[in-house]
């Protein structure tokens, strides 16, 4: 039988991989993909804790996280397209106009 701890450790490892992607990559699309990895790491925590507690609430909040992720991907990718039109690059280092 797999324990709850193993699922939580898997989730922590996935979240760290996602964070590393956001910190290390210099490509807006890959950064958005890393955010999706982090969202999925949190989803697996919700589902496994819901399974542990014997309620469906974990699965329902996962459903809402997926909806928010879809909305975030749509708006994020629209922003990426708009930024690419202005600067012809996907590197976040090129978009520092708002930096103080």
């Amino acid at each position, binding site marked *: *039988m*797999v*324990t*709850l*701890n193993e*699922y*939580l*450790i*898997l989730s*922590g*490892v*996935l*979240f*760290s*991989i996602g964070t*590393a992607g956001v*910190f*290390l*990559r*210099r*490509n807006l*699309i*890959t950064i958005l*993909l*890393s955010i*999706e*990895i982090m969202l*999925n790491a949190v*989803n*697996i925590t919700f*589902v496994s804790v819901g*399974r*542990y507690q*014997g*309620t*469906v609430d974990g*699965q*329902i909040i*996962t*459903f*809402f996280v*997926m*909806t*928010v*992720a*879809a*909305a975030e*991907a*749509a*708006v994020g*990718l*629209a922003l990426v*397209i*708009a930024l*690419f*039109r202005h600067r012809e690059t*996907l*590197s976040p*280092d*090129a978009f520092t106009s708002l930096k103080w």
Partner: protein
Amino acid sequence: MDRIIFYILAGVTVLASLGVVSSKNPMHSVMMLIVSFGALAGLYVLLDAPFTAVTQIIVYAGAIMVLFLFVVMLLNQHKEDDPDVMPAGLRGVNMRAGVLLSLLLAFEVAWGLSRVGVTMFSSDPAAVSSISSVARIGTSLFTTHAFAFEVTSVLILVSMVGAVVIARRER
């Protein structure tokens, strides 16, 4: 048996996620992420959540990843830009700090979880069948969480309009 499947699926998920982060070509990253989501759907099945597994495949691996693929193909940037926008020395420091921070996060989570005692899932068949029932999820979604569900529809409408307005060509 469960353990073996869990470790295979977890290994595929972690390796595919590492591939997403380390691949230089965004197209390969998206493909790797689809593999990772497929393995995650298998993990949801192991957790007696078949509805979430199917949603994961249809919504994530289907809809969201196709959106990403469209944008990758539209922009046609199949390699990372040259990192010469920033001074070379500063960039190295940033990279090392980033790796350090994510490793620190992984160690913190692992340390915290190692302090918690081993927690087993209940294997009572009645409890298992009640949480894997789609009917129960639906009932809970449309009664207890009905308000959140309706707010979600507004969120989707807003993001749809927002995406069209942001990505529209200005004239």
